[in-house]
């Protein structure tokens, strides 16, 4: 049983298109996240939801819109894709948003924008 699962694993698309990445966790966690990992492996948080409520929104272009229909799901929709959006996007979850809770990651979605 996969704890945090993301789909698709690979996503290749052209500039200007709109795409979505889905994430689901079966750990019963309250908090979910989206992280972006660039080509140099640097990880940066994008968003965090706690029980469907947005609690972290870093400096991310408005073209990125997260949606959490319930606490087990956090999807990421990206409008008007740009070359610079190419990266690996990781979904993660934690038991709660406290500083003590470690993150559980999905296996990532490699987005390539051509």
């Amino acid at each position, binding site marked *: 049983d996969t704890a945090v699962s993301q789909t698709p694993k690979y996503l290749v698309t052209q500039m200007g298109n709109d795409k979505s990445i889905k994430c689901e966790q079966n750990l019963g966690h309250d908090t979910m996240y989206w992280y972006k990992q660039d080509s140099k*492996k640097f990880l940066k948080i994008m968003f*965090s939801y706690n029980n469907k409520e947005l*609690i972290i929104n870093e400096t991310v272009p408005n073209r990125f819109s997260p949606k959490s229909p319930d606490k087990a799901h956090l999807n990421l929709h990206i409008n008007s894709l740009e070359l610079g959006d190419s990266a690996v996007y990781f979904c*993660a979850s934690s038991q709660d*948003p406290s*500083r003590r809770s*470690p*993150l559980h990651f*999905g296996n990532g979605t490699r987005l390539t924008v051509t």
Partner: protein
Amino acid sequence: AQSVTQLDSQVPVFEEAPVELRCNYSSSVSVYLFWYVQYPNQGLQLLLKYLSGSTLVESINGFEAEFNKSQTSFHLRKPSVHISDTAEYFCAVSDRYMSTGGFKTIFGAGTRLFVKA
């Protein structure tokens, strides 16, 4: 704001040799530290964490890290590495998110451990 610095981008080492991956954090009153490992084409997995108590923490696969407050360090060590330890290792710290008072995890730039036969 908290930050972590991983001093080595790559560490090549021979199999069965000891290894140390260095991590320094910015000073704070209290700090919660983590090491994560990322194998190729996978997500990150928690290796070990320091929340409080004993300054030496261990993982199930032989890694250990020591919290050193005076040197603001949390170096990761293993006395004898295996080929299968080849991976990217990330040091991380919890940081308060100012807008909501919640916490977010800040990652270092990562250290690629490459174990050679």
